[in-house]
């Protein structure tokens, strides 16, 4: 019986570029969804997660350059400083470059723990850039969204790897 998530030894088919582009678009739209109050605090950066996933799975398609470019779009959409998201996404893509060699050997929840560290690091980088630029310190809830992002990671991985899994993955051992 095929497991819910792909096992480390399962070989995934290469992802179709169109699928990668579509998931990026959906990640972007998810970021645009209006949220207020508590929801706004919890809302993770979906686009960052999608970028991280593809950087790990398809490093030939998604890299530092694309991530940076997607970050610029996010900067316009959020009306933040130009280059803020771009810098964060580029750093995320770069760390994925080294991270991907080992992360797929872990179970999804262990991966989530490592993703949390990456996302928190990027959030801290953005915080540094903004505070240097003269912005006030945000509330501590600023660091809640990256943690929620890490919790979403297993679900997102399962969703994004589904089309790449072989039709009859019979890894019955």
């Amino acid at each position, binding site marked *: 019986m095929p497991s819910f998530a792909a096992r480390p030894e399962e070989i995934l088919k290469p992802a179709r570029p169109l699928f990668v582009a579509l998931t990026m678009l959906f990640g972007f739209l998810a970021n645009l969804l209006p949220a207020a109050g508590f929801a706004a605090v919890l809302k993770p950066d979906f686009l960052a997660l999608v970028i991280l996933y593809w950087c790990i799975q398809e490093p030939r398609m998604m890299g530092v350059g694309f991530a940076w470019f997607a*970050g610029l779009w996010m900067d*316009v959409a*959020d*009306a933040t400083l130009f280059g803020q998201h771009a810098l964060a996404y580029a750093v995320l893509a770069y760390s994925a470059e080294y991270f991907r060699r080992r992360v797929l050997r872990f179970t999804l929840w262990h991966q989530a723990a490592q993703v949390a560290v990456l996302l928190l690091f990027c959030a801290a980088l953005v915080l540094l850039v*903004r505070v240097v630029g003269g*912005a006030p310190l945000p509330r501590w809830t600023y660091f809640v969204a990256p943690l929620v992002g890490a919790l979403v990671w297993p679900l997102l991985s399962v969703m994004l790897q589904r089309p790449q899994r072989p039709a009859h993955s019979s890894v019955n051992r």
Partner: protein
Amino acid sequence: MLHTDPPPFFHRGPSPLARLSFFALLSIALLFADTRFRYLEGIRHGVNTVIAPLQSAVQWPGEAAGFVVSYFASKRALSAENTELKSQLLAQGPAVQGASRVEAENAKLKALLDVHARYGGAAVAVEVLFSGRDPFSQKVFVGKGTDAGIKPGEAVIDEAGVVGQVTRAFASMSEVTLLTDKDHAVPVKNERTGVRSVLYGTGTGRPLELRFIPPSADVQAGDRLITSGLDGTYPAGLAVAKVDAVERDTGQIFAHITCSPLAGVDRSEQLLVLGETAARIARPDEPAGADNARKPARVKARRGG
């Protein structure tokens, strides 16, 4: 440590570190250009024309849900609201009936003093689309833009008082920086004593501050602050804030005065954008080389965030 670099015969372009350094430097250059000089507003407007339709597309699930919920809102709630509104109307009756007399009197006095009409510009009613997603700044986005004649710099109010100021106007959407934003300041006047000052926002969840007031000044908790109109941005006489607490420390040069906005700055859904005042006093020519001259009540335009 194991070698992680690929063997040289697999050509893969510049190394990830080289690429990261390039893009990181580019980001920092952009950040600098945006923070200090605002060179990139053109690009921002261009990209925003592509993003705006997407933004309004993701808006509709929420709107649809809101519509369904409001459709099924119980009749009792509506009738209760109706009763309350009726009693409010009744309570305001005397004021409304007296208003025309007061208005006439006011006009006469103004004519006597040869004062410009306080506010003669057009106003545009707008609805808040969504609040800004940037945790470092206090902004809302409203559903009308340059198409409706909204221009950056125009004041935004709700039924209770000043909410903020338009800082960017796109085609069919505008960005409003709220009173509570750290980079926002508005020149005010104490309604009770007439003492003028500038009211500063301080960022998320922190009270507004009235700065540069000597400890000896006559300011009390409960005083109402109204716009003084000195900046030419906010028309004079709009309600802004209420003084919450005044701390007078003799060791300090200035008193520490905290205030809270009268308007529902982060709650109001319906706002009014006040167009340019018909009769605005021309700004004096700035002397050459006075780039750093203080411009009160303008959002310090160099910080975009």
